[in-house]
């Protein structure tokens, strides 16, 4: 009898405590997670030759648990409104974490106006993320697609509730970040986990990496055609009169990053004035008219895997891209015409450049199980 009375009191008291004092709505007390061990394992990245240092934010150190949580969130459509779109929908491992579609469809098949970007080596970037550079950090970047109406079309409050109710994620957030209650799962922690996973997406094992950065002594690593393409890419011709130059590295150097992380109008859009760009790119962020039509130079690592090309995916092949730059493109007042200028490359030069671009392909990262979809 005592037990029944006690239980009754406990239930009534419990129900009362779940009610808001003012409006009577039921308040979810969340789930106490402290019984789950919190002992994260620090994770140290190995930075291959040719790549710069990577900043790890002090408030988001890499841990095995955080990275694994990020990987699951990355591949889980739970972040989208109708559970159809995950990060990996537009950032496919098999395409260097890019999308073979010019414009990736979002929830309901809606299309935006920009192509997705490769995430390989994204953790090394320090000069803004997205084509227009609007995010300074991966932690900030990861927040945007969820609420973009042409991407995941969800709101973070809903995502937080879904994650707070999810048995496995509750455990993993606890293990990664030491939260004590499931209600402490927030968008900020989800973004931190995604950022941790993205910082591990390192690739540095292409044939050109081996030759240039790993000092591989194999003299046959690159063909003569590819070496000629390398010279055109880097304008490395020791001043030979009339030698072909591609001016490529002005925007695609940065050691083994193969991006200079600069914002440029690469002359693909013909406009009468700088105000006429259909997509203002960086200019829409800074408000400077001279930034209109400027987009971030992407990494050329794995470029052969990431067609179509440009911020709007207008070019289907690398041959088209080379032809564009060979033509000099369309003048505008913010085009740096010192390098974006008619190149007068011969057919052989173009073949050589194309061959060199293929030497930047690293498929070994495919084999890394830590990058793969954990739900497959």
């Amino acid at each position, binding site marked *: 009898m005592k037990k029944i009375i006690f239980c009754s009191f406990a239930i009534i008291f419990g129900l009362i405590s779940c009610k808001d004092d003012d409006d009577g709505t039921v308040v979810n007390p969340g789930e106490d997670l402290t019984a789950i061990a919190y002992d994260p394992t620090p994770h140290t990245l190995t*930075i291959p*030759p*040719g*790549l*710069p*240092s990577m*900043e790890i934010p002090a408030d988001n150190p890499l841990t095995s648990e955080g990275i694994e949580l990020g990987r699951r969130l990355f591949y889980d459509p739970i972040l989208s409104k109708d559970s159809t779109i995950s990060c990996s929908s537009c950032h496919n491992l098999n395409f260097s974490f890019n999308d073979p579609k010019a414009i990736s469809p979002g929830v309901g098949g809606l299309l935006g106006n920009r192509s997705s970007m490769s995430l390989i080596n994204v953790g090394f*970037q*320090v*000069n803004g993320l997205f084509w227009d550079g609007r995010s300074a950090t991966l932690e900030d970047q990861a927040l945007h697609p969820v609420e973009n109406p042409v991407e995941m079309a969800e709101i973070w409050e809903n995502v937080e509730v879904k994650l707070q109710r999810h048995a496995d994620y509750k455990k993993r957030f606890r293990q990664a970040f030491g939260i004590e209650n499931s209600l402490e799962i927030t968008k900020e922690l989800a973004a931190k986990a995604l950022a941790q996973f993205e910082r591990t997406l390192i690739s540095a094992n292409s044939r050109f990496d081996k030759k*240039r950065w790993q000092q591989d002594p194999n003299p046959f690593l690159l063909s003569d055609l590819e070496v000629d393409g390398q010279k055109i890419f*880097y*304008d*490395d*011709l*020791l*001043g*030979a009169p009339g030698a072909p*130059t591609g*001016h490529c*590295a*002005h925007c695609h*150097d*940065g*050691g083994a*990053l193969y*991006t*200079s*992380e*600069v914002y440029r109008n690469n002359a693909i859009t013909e406009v009468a004035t700088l105000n006429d760009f259909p997509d203002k790119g960086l200019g829409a962020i800074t408000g*400077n008219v*001279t930034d209109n039509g400027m987009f971030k130079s992407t990494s050329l690592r794995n470029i052969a895997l990431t067609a179509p090309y440009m911020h709007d995916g207008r070019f289907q092949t690398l041959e088209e891209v080379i032809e564009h730059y060979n033509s*000099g493109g369309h*003048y505008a*007042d*913010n085009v*740096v*015409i*010192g*390098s974006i*200028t008619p190149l007068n490359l011969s057919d052989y030069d173009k073949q050589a450049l194309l061959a060199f671009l293929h030497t930047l392909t690293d498929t070994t990262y495919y084999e890394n199980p830590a990058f793969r979809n954990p739900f497959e």
Partner: protein
Amino acid sequence: MRKLAFFLFASLFFAACGEDEAPKSPTATVNLHLLGEYNGEPLVLFQPLDYPSGNKIRFQNFNFFASKITLLGAGSTADYQLSSVEFFDFKDNLDLVSAETPLERNYENVPVGTYNGIQIDFGVSEELNNAQSGNLPNDNPLRQAFASHYWSDWDSYIFMKSEGIYDKNGDGVFNQSDQGFEHHPGMDAVLTRVTKMTSITLEEGQTFDLDLVADVFDIYVENGVALDLSDPDNQDTQSLADLPLAKSLMGHWATALKF
């Protein structure tokens, strides 16, 4: 009694430790202001400017590294290095108001005294230029500008980027028929040390404003003779054949840096 003795002994011990500390040397703060100019006027990017040839020139980018920024000691005052390397970028000089606002660097805890002048290596000093960028913290200028300014083929940073367009045909209109220029000198061989003498007196607790000017006009014009920007050979500094031009441009920092 023993406790009291111990307490007194301990007090004396700690007090003695305090006395051993070296007295703090008096220090001051140096605020370095660097104004970008073109021929004595604030440098505004994307604006047509008069070139000595009579044609117009327009700059789109102007930035550079300065390393070993050092106050030169005088008498009992030793040389003092304010910074091992800085990156100065005039990318925000898009209107007159912005162009009139100098770039600023703040150096605290500089020993007081009278200095004879300032010495700057324009470019990246040899030891830094040859260092591995993989070990640099993110806030280091060499890390921040690694992607944009490290030229792999030279194994060197690009020391200066001066980019723009020259109205080659003199019709007053800039377009693709004109001459773009993209001067990116780098390599240890073009590092240029510039010394400017002036009396700099730093007083304890005070802030000294060190006002400097980088006049890009003087990069291109020496003793009234301007680089012929209509000559395609002067369009860029990409290969070893361009080394004389690269050296010439960097050498002009001796006059381009002004108080």
